[in-house]
């Protein structure tokens, strides 16, 4: 790579001045796509050194796994259409054509070559990407093209990036003064690649000069300070993300257990029903609607999973739970039995294996916030969704007629009945609402985890933990407990690992409940049931 980029730089300056470069020929390309990796890399370097712009699309095709070859030819297969990779003429692919093998090393080399070719692209975004790629593996041979690009560059942000790239290429230079200067410049870096580079230079096989070492060390401290902010924000984000999932999982339970006092062991299975509904909606979209609509299946899946789970909840309440009000032990056993029935039913209908739920493309990938912090879209979406559901539930309880009735029945069932509230109906509605929210949680979970018959079992303990910790009967308690548990789990996970963190959280909760059985937020004054 070193030599190749140096040559490329020379070639580029030549080609700018002189005649257009010759197009890539078949034997050259043939040598790049097949043979020993070292030989292929050498062939790639030789080809790039001609500064041939026609190489770029071919390299891109190779990176996209679109190239095939046989004894003498290389073909490009794009959307099922084969063409000669050199001339671009349409061709038929012979049966014995082989796929071009690209391993990580070749991929890295090809990406660096492409980036070098793209440093002079007119589009600033393309240049920025090219600089970022080159910064992943900087070396001194890039200096010439970096200098050329620096002289050309007008965008101040990109100029800064290029200076950093230049510093990165110079930090291993034999010239002590250059190294010293580079080390100073690198202190402004704020990405993991710079951190790794500095770490390597400070390692046993790196810098030997004490003055440069000191400079490198202070640069490392500066970069670390930049990165630390990203790391802290990262922990906070993962905590909030886990918290939002816990909140969604617990909100439904906060209504059925918190407000109505029903220990609903089948709550997890109601979530599972929501998740399976999402899977079914997804399959229906794939089977019956055009491909473009698939990305929006989730829009239909949200209400569908709410309705499906709410319906099952209503049936449960009417058929089983309403006979058991005020008998917590029986409720617990009955709902546990129901949960087993639901799991087995799902196994019979959908099979015991997990079902596939694909993320819509707009929920794949992430939002790069800082150089070492990428926020995945699906997690961002779930946080937003949790906030929406929370607001919805809070408004429903505080502002609507149903909410008023629910509160009335919770606080004093007999008095409510006396003033004409149909308490049985309110019970059914409230329970169905809790179940529906569980369904929404299941829909959200399908985007981050696996959807299988056991989905509910993994979350039921967490759900009860949140509700009990927050204080039974309190939405605000559930919010604080969910976020607190989420952030605490992630903090501990960072220190002690996932297995120990889980144990520590459980122990902490047990200790907390011992000290404060009523949870974080207790109902003040006379409790309704007491």
């Amino acid at each position, binding site marked *: 790579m070193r030599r190749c980029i140096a040559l490329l730089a020379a070639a580029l300056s030549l080609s700018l001045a002189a005649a257009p470069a010759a197009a890539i020929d078949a034997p050259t390309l043939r040598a790049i796509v097949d043979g020993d*990796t*070292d030989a292929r890399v050498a062939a790639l370097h030789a080809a790039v050194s001609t500064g041939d712009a026609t190489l770029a699309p071919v390299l891109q095709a190779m990176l*996209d*796994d679109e190239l095939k070859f046989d004894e003498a030819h290389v073909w490009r297969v794009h959307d099922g259409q084969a063409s000669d990779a050199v001339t671009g003429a349409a061709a038929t692919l012979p049966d014995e054509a082989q*796929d071009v*093998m*690209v*391993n*990580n*090393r070749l*991929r*890295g080399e090809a*990406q660096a070559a492409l980036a070098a070719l793209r440093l002079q692209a007119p589009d600033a975004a393309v240049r920025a990407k090219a600089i970022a790629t080159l910064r*992943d593996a900087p070396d001194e041979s890039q200096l010439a093209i970096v200098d050329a690009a620096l002289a050309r560059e007008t965008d101040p942000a990109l100029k800064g990036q290029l200076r950093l790239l230049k510093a990165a290429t110079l930090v291993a230079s034999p010239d002590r003064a250059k190294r010293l200067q580079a080390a100073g410049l690198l202190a402004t870096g704020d990405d*993991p*690649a710079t*951190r*790794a*580079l500095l*770490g*390597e230079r400070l*390692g046993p096989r790196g810098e030997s000069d004490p003055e440069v070492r000191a400079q490198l060390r202070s640069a490392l401290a500066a970069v670390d300070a930049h*990165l630390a902010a990203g*790391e802290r924000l*990262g*922990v906070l*984000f*993962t905590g909030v*993300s*886990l918290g939002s999932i816990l909140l969604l999982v617990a909100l439904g339970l906060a209504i059925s257990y918190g407000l109505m006092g029903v220990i609903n062991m089948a709550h997890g299975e109601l979530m599972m029903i929501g998740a399976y509904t999402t899977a079914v909606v997804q399959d229906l979209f794939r089977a019956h609607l055009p491909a473009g609509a698939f990305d929006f299946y989730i829009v239909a899946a949200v209400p569908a999973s709410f309705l499906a789970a709410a319906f099952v909840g209503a049936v449960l309440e009417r058929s089983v739970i309403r006979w058991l009000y005020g008998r917590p032990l029986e409720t617990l056993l009955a709902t546990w039995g129901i949960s087993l029935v639901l799991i087995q039913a799902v*196994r019979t209908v959908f099979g*015991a*294996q*997990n079902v*596939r*739920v*694909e*993320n819509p493309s707009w929920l*794949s*990938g*992430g939002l*790069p916030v800082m150089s*070492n912090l*990428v926020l*995945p879209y*699906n*997690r961002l979406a779930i946080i937003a969704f949790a906030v929406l559901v929370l607001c919805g539930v809070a408004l429903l309880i505080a502002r609507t007629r149903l909410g008023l009735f629910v509160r009335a029945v919770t606080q004093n069932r007999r008095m409510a009945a006396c003033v004409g509230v149909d308490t049985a109906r309110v019970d059914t509605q409230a329970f169905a609402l809790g179940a529906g929210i569980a369904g929404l949680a299941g829909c959200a979970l399908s985007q*981050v*985890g*696996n959807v*299988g*018959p*056991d989905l509910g079992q*993994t979350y039921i303990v967490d759900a009860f933990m949140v509700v009990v910790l927050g204080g039974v009967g309190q939405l605000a308690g559930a919010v604080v407990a969910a976020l607190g548990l989420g952030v605490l789990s*992630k903090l501990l*996970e*960072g220190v002690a*690992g*996932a*297995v120990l963190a889980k144990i520590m959280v459980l122990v902490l909760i047990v200790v907390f409940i011992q000290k404060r059985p009523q949870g974080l937020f207790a109902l003040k004054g006379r409790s309704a049931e007491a």
Partner: protein
Amino acid sequence: MKATRRFAIRLTALAVGAAIVGTVTTAQAADTIKVGILHSLSGTMAISETALKDTALMTIEEINAKGGVLGRKLEPVVVDPASNWPLFAEKARQLVTQDKVAVVFGCWTSVSRKSVLPVFEQNDGLLFYPVQYEGEELSRNVFYTGAAPNQQAIPAVEYLMSKDGGSATRFVLLGTDYVYPRTTNKILRAFLHSKGVADADIMEEYTPFGHSDYQSIIAKIRKFASEGKKTAVVSTINGDSNVPFYKELGNQGLKATDVPVVAFSVGEEELRGVDTKPLVGHLAAWNYFMSIKNPTNSAFIKAWKAYAEAKGLPGQKDKPLTNDPMEATYIGMHMWAQAVEKAGSTDTDKVIAAMSGQTFKAPDGFTITMDEKNHHLHKPVFIGEVRADGQFNVVWKTPGPIKAQPWSPFIPENKDKKDEPAAK
């Protein structure tokens, strides 16, 4: 009243009839050889093990179509141990003592194998275990048709350290928290020490079974990778946790050219349903890939496709996928059938004796041999990179099959261990 009596008589007649039919079926069953299949069809391991059950059934059909073994048809007995380790032992006992099966094909995780091991040793049963594992075990009642560490883990790490593999000098050993990842990582740590990698350059991290939140693990890997040059991740995550792990890896944009992840328990089947476009270049080490081109493999894939379509296997019927443990199941069962033919009996001792030196032309393109002594196969090693379509590109392979070392030379206590199981 009359009606009731008539009903009772009818019921008795029916029961008697059923009893007769029942005896007839048992009489027929005596002409078959029973084969136990012990794979989780539910729970966290179902993602991997269900396909092995179906492969075993397909192979039984294949053998029966050619006339069975010793002129008798094979009769599968399928049980579901539900990813529950004690249940594995119970179901194994049921297969061996009640159903009296001649042989059992089963288990994926090492913890399940460890839990059924005493059952097979006490009752002198025969288990064929089709998955790569950590070694450190050699039972005369078990044939290991998956890879030992020197046939998978060690070559994979050697590849990561090579120029083509990215010259990695720092390693994250990431696994599910049980015996296989812990032992493999112990061997790998000793191996890395022998290559001059310091403890400070190794990070070991475990998650529980079924873990689904890999955000902080990925953040940790990112941080560790930024602390020095060229980090690689060695993943021994098992079961359906792999789906959220790879999803998170893709979403957080950790690219294979920066930090390659090599996995030992992730194949074509586990990546079904994961968007593999952001994962291109991440690696897996196995002794077989579906993408290997040779006539035996084409025939194997064709047979599997036909079977999946005929049986309407969920998922497989639309997109049939084969993988390494499926191949190992296939090889194991054929070798067992050959050994039974050779021994002229299904007697455990005779079959064990007949197994040594068995050969089979396998879908990996080589004629695979069962070692004379150590109950392991001589297997070729392939390292593949994930492609955008969920298949693997073979980027490195051994010239031919290599002998298994169940006792890793990198664990000092293994120095005096014998390369064959203790006699009964």
